[in-house]
């Protein structure tokens, strides 16, 4: 690949289009200073992708556009095209010829074209990247590069080599990346600041948020429980309301009935009072009537008697008169009959006298018999009669009394029946209540048992948990102790390792420094370089002793440096064995021979060890003069045979030291450095494991502690709940006992009333029996009395009859005696009387006539005066009857009144009771009203509470709430929750959200920071890896350049010597580079001490060396030879010509010598101010031909 043509228009001073055809050899562009010939270089640089306007000596990219001149307007665009031959397909595109165009407009727009097709800058840079034509390449070399080489300090000079090695851009980017990474680190520091601020907020916020969460949780729970309790209470209220409404209804009904009853009773009382009043009035009236009737009756009785008297007198008089009449008539007739009769009688009388005298004698005999018996019987019966009468009176009284008692009994029984029914009802009520309380009590007792069980279980759990917690805590403490032991032992071991084996520590430090190239000339520790094995191990270990950790260095200076380094770093101590100082030590042949003859002798120590031949001296120095023997005694003898000039060690590890000292014994423990190290590592592992275990145990203990705390709280809650239940049980039990006592008392009273009732019933039965008995007795007595009366009457009759008979007999006797006498007399008299009779007859007849006339007169007078007997009898009967009726009425009325009074009293008592009960009922109703009102109020309050506090309707709340709610526990929970909420103090509800926000941000920043930190570390690692690659490339490139430089220098100078020196060979990344040269005939000197020309030429040599190292298809040399004298220019030109056989060169020059070496020349002139023109110059006819041939 080589350049074929360059076309420029509008670029800098090339206002007009120019074209330059390059040849594969050397193409020269010549012209005086200020002609614009360097613009050719700029053009090529530009089209190849240069982005830095500064590199093109401009402020901004548009400055490359032709800016106009005195006679020309500025152009609107600049365009450069570069055409390359690609037959060898060095460029990775399938074309023989490649055209690259770049265009920029004054407007700022720009274009890139590849083979006349638009493309990106990157496409172009990528195209040339591997061809060595990139911006990093040395295809363009200007005067500045020479100066750069000449004037740079050694540190700065390396950039040329870096560029040559292709690492300059990486280095620059690395620097930029590192700058970005530093920026990132700074930003992350600031992020740390912010995180720090957030940290200071997070914990308080977490606390607040936790409190707020607790608050919310408790509030929610409180709300739920509260709502549940409210709903429950509302339910209860509704039920209670319904119940009470029902009860009120029933109560109202009851009260209505009761009121009716009471009113009825009141009416009854009023009625009874009226009845009593009426009875009293009636009684009064009856009393008056009775008095009147009695008086009237008596009056009529008097009238009756009077009339009777009158009539009697009249009758008597009449009768008398009649009698007189009749008498007179009789007398009249008697005188008449007597007259007749007298006669007859006289006869008869005389006969009768004789008969009668016989009869009289008989009668006189009968009279001596008695009449007394009958009288005695009569007397007895009369006495009996009196007795019976007394008994009858008694029985009557008894009957009356019994009846009275029966009535009272009946009333009492009725009263007791009511009482009994009431008490039964009350008893039933109490029983129900008692059962309800018992039920509650049982529930509470069950709850209490359950709580006790829960308490026991919880206590057991707590005890177990506490034991476990204590056990785990003890284990944790033991773990802590163990951890401390391990830590302490590890620290002690580490410290002791550092302390006691500060020596070894130093050794380690040295070895580490060797690994990181901080120290040079360090080969390693003796233990690393010398191996022992088998049965000789102990002997050789003993022989080496601490020397096993000595460090082998290359030189003494290395050792001193290492020691200084150790001192500076305070990194411990170490012993160094510089190879350049240490010498072999051997046992003299004589001694060896003498020792060898001893049967205990084994060999010299160095013969028993294995080592690299490079360290043979070291090994022999350490072990060469050590003899190994089997036992101590032999060792002693061997040592003595050698005059104690060599150490002798035994297989057991005993030592006979030079000089004769003996070392031996049995080490208590074979804790070698390695074993201690192993123990340390083991301890470290144990520590890590133990710490993990401890962390887990801490978690467990923390959990257990939390559990114990929770359980403790639970236990306390259970205890409190249990206590409340116990109090409730206590109260219910008391209530139950109260009810029980009341029930017992009531039952007792019921029993008493029942017993009384039974007694009363029994007594009533007795009374009824007695009543019946009394009545029967009365009847019996009545009958008996009648019978006795009859008997007495009969006996009286019999007596009379008896008396009569006796008298009759006596009379009959007397009469007969008298009759006898009388008959005797009669006879006498009859005789005289007859005579008188006639006289008397006549008198009588006249009397009769007088009386008959008086009678007639009296009869007429009686019938006209006063009531008749019938009237009187009727009146008397009527009044007597009326009197009896009145008496009966009065008695009945009085009895009725008494009954009524008793009833009234009873009713009044009942009424009083009813009134009392009524008052109670009214109170009850009022209580119902009050309760209802309170309940309504409470319900409203609860509903309002639901509405205001929780914005819920009852239905909604019902839906939300769990029905199964233990209200008491809930209320306690409410209390506890409120208490807990109060204990929280001021609660910041915003804290939760704020904590989340801050936490989120904290997490975000933390994660992002971690992400960035990790990425940063990754990039740092990448940089490290790339540094390694860069170092390798730099090193490789440097030495190549160095080699070429040495060759090129000699060619350019025609002899002499030059070299490149690295100032820090172990820091290739940053080392400076010195250039030393020895022109022919002079001594080797630093570049700075050479003459100007020599220095310039040396720089050019370096550049050429770089070009040889990193070949480029073409190279533009822009006034490189400016500082050279003519002779050197010639040398430069000749070398160039020779070099051009490998590469294409375009030289920008004004030196004649250089022109002479060119194949093609182009002239640049600025005849017109500010505008460059091209003039083609062919130096030789043949040479163009030659060039042409080459092109073929």
């Amino acid at each position: 690949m080589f350049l074929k043509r360059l076309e420029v228009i509008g670029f800098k001073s090339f206002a007009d289009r120019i074209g330059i055809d390059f040849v594969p050899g050397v193409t020269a562009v010549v012209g005086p200073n200020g002609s614009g010939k360097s613009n050719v270089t700029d053009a090529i640089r530009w089209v190849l992708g240069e982005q830095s306007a500064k590199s093109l000596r401009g402020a901004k990219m548009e400055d490359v556009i032709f800016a106009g001149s005195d006679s020309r307007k500025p152009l609107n665009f600049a365009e450069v095209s570069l055409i390359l031959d690609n037959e060898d397909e060095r460029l990775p595109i399938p074309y023989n010829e490649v055209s690259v165009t770049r265009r920029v407009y004054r407007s700022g727009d720009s274009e890139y074209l590849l083979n006349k097709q638009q493309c990106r800058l990157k496409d172009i840079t990528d195209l040339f990247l591997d061809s060595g034509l990139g911006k990093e390449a040395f295809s363009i070399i200007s005067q500045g590069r020479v100066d750069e080489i000449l004037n740079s300090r050694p540190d700065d000079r390396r950039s040329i080599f870096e560029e040559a090695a292709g690492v300059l851009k990486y280095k620059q980017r690395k620097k930029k990346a590192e700058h970005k990474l530093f920026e990132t680190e700074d930003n992350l520091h600031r992020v740390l600041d912010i995180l720090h601020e957030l940290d200071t907020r997070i914990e308080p916020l977490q606390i607040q948020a936790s409190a707020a969460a607790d608050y919310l949780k408790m509030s929610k729970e409180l709300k739920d429980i509260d709502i549940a309790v409210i709903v429950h209470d509302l339910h209860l209220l509704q039920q209670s309301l319904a119940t009470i409404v029902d009860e009120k209804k029933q109560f109202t009904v009851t009260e209505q009935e009761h009121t009716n009853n009471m009113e009825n009773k009141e009416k009854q009382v009023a009625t009874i009072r009226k009845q009593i009043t009426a009875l009293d009035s009636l009684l009064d009236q009856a009393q008056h009537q009775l008095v009147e009737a009695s008086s009237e009756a008596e009056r009529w009785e008097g009238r009756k008697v009077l009339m009777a008297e009158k009539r009697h007198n009249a009758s008597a008089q009449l009768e008398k008169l009649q009698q007189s009449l009749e008498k007179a008539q009789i007398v009249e007739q008697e005188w008449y009959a007597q007259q007749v009769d007298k006669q007859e009688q006289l006869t008869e009388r005389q006969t009768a006298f004789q008969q009668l005298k016989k009869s009289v004698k008989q009668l006189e005999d009968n009279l001596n018999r008695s009449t007394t018996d009958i009288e005695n019987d009569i007397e007895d019966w009369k006495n009996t009669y009196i007795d019976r009468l007394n008994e009858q009176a008694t029985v009557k009284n008894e009957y009356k009394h019994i009846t009275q008692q029966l009535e009272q009994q009946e009333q009492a029984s009725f009263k007791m029946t009511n009482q009994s029914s009431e008490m039964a009802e009350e008893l039933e009520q109490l029983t129900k209540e008692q059962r309800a309380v018992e039920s509650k009590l049982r529930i509470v007792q069950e709850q209490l048992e359950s709580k006790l069980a829960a308490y026991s279980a919880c206590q057991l759990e707590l005890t177990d948990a506490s034991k476990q917690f204590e056990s785990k805590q003890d284990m944790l403490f033991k773990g802590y102790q163990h951890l401390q032991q391990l830590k302490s032992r590890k620290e002690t071991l580490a410290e002791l390792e550092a302390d006691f084996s500060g020596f070894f520590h130093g050794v380690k430090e040295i070895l580490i420094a060797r690994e990181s190239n901080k120290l040079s000339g360090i080969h390693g520790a003796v233990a690393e370089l010398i191996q022992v094995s088998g049965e000789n191990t102990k002997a050789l270990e003993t022989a080496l002793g601490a020397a096993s950790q000595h460090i082998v260095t290359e030189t003494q200076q290395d050792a001193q440096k290492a020691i200084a380094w150790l001192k500076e770093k305070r990194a411990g101590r170490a012993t160094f064995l510089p190879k350049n100082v240490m010498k072999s030590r051997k046992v003299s042949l004589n001694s060896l021979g003498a020792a060898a003859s001893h049967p205990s002798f084994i060999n010299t120590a160095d013969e028993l060890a294995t080592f690299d031949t490079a360290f043979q001296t070291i090994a022999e120095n350490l072990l060469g003069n050590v003899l190994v023997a089997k036992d101590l005694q032999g060792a002693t003898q061997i040592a003595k045979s050698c005059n104690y000039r060599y150490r002798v060690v035994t297989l057991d590890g005993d030592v006979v030291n030079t000089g004769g000292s003996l070392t031996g014994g049995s080490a208590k423990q074979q804790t070698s450095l390695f074993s201690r190290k192993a123990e340390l590592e083991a301890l470290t592992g144990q520590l890590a494991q133990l710490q993990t275990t401890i962390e887990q145990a801490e978690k467990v203990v923390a959990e257990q502690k939390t559990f114990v705390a929770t359980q403790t709280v639970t236990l306390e809650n259970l205890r409190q709940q249990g206590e409340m239940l116990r109090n409730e049980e206590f109260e219910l039990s008391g209530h139950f006992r109260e009810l029980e006592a009341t029930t017992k008392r009531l039952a007792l009273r019921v029993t008493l009333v029942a017993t009384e009732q039974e007694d009363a019933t029994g007594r009533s039965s007795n009374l009824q029996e007695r009543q019946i008995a009394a009545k029967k007795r009365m009847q019996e007595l009545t009958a008996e009395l009648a019978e006795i009366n009859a008997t007495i009457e009969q006996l009286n009759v019999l007596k009379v009859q008896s008396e009569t008979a006796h008298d009759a007999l006596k009379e009959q006797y007397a009469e007969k005696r008298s009759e006898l006498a009388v008959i005797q007399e009669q006879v006498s008299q009859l005789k005289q009387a007859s005579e008188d009779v006639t006289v008397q007859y006549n008198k009588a007849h006249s009397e009769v006539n007088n009386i008959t006339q008086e009678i007639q007169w009296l009869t007429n007078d009686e019938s006209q005066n006063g009531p008749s007997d019938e009237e009187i009898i009727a009146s008397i009967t009527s009044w007597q009857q009326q009197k009896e009726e009145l008496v009966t009425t009065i008695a009945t009325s009085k009895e009725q009144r008494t009954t009524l009074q008793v009833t009234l009293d009873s009713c009044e008592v009942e009424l009083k009771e009813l009134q009392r009960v009524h008052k109670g009922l009214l109170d009850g109703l009022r209580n119902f009203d009050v309760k209802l009102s309170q309940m309504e109020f409470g319900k409203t309050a609860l509903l309002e509470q639901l509405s205001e506090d929780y914005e819920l309707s009852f239905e909604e709340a019902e839906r939300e709430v769990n029905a199964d709610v233990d209200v008491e526990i809930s209320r306690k929970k409410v209390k506890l929750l409120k208490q807990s909420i109060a204990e929280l103090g001021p609660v910041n509800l915003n804290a939760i959200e704020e904590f989340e926000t801050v936490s989120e941000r904290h997490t975000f920043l933390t994660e992002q920071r971690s992400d960035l930190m990790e990425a940063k570390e990754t990039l740092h690692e990448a940089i490290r890896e790339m540094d390694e690659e860069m170092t390798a490339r730099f090193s490789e490139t440097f030495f190549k350049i160095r080699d070429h430089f040495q060759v090129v220098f000699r060619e350019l100078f025609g002899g002499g010597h030059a070299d490149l020196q690295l100032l820090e060979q172990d820091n290739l990344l940053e080392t400076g580079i010195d250039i030393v040269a020895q022109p022919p005939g002079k001594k080797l000197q630093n570049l700075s001490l050479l003459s100007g020309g020599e220095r310039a030429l040396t720089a050019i040599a370096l550049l050429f060396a770089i070009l040889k190292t990193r070949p480029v298809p073409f190279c533009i040399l822009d006034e490189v030879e400016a500082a050279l004298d003519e002779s050197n220019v010639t040398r430069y030109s000749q070398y160039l010509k020779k070099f051009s056989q490998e590469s294409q060169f375009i030289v920008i020059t004004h030196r004649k010598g250089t022109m002479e070496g060119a194949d093609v020349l182009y002239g640049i002139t600025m005849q017109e101010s500010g505008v460059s023109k091209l003039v083609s110059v062919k130096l030789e006819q043949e040479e163009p031909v030659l060039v042409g041939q080459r092109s073929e």
Partner: protein
Amino acid sequence: MSYEVKLEAFEGPLDLLLHLIHRLEIDIYDIPMAELTAQYMEHIRAMQVLELNEASEYLVMAASLLAIKSKMLLPIHEGELDETE
């Protein structure tokens, strides 16, 4: 061939990602830097020969992304707005 990343929020060339982030078409918080750099590291290690230029180019991009992202974590103060890239 250009280095491509495969992330949840983006899949394509790294320079395009940088470009889009600059143009605020991709939220840089969606780009996990650790994963990005891990892929980049993997890519570097996978190279037969370490292309320092290419790798360093991506290094600068990645570092730029880190710087951008880390900067975005920070508040913007007055007078800093014009300093943003």
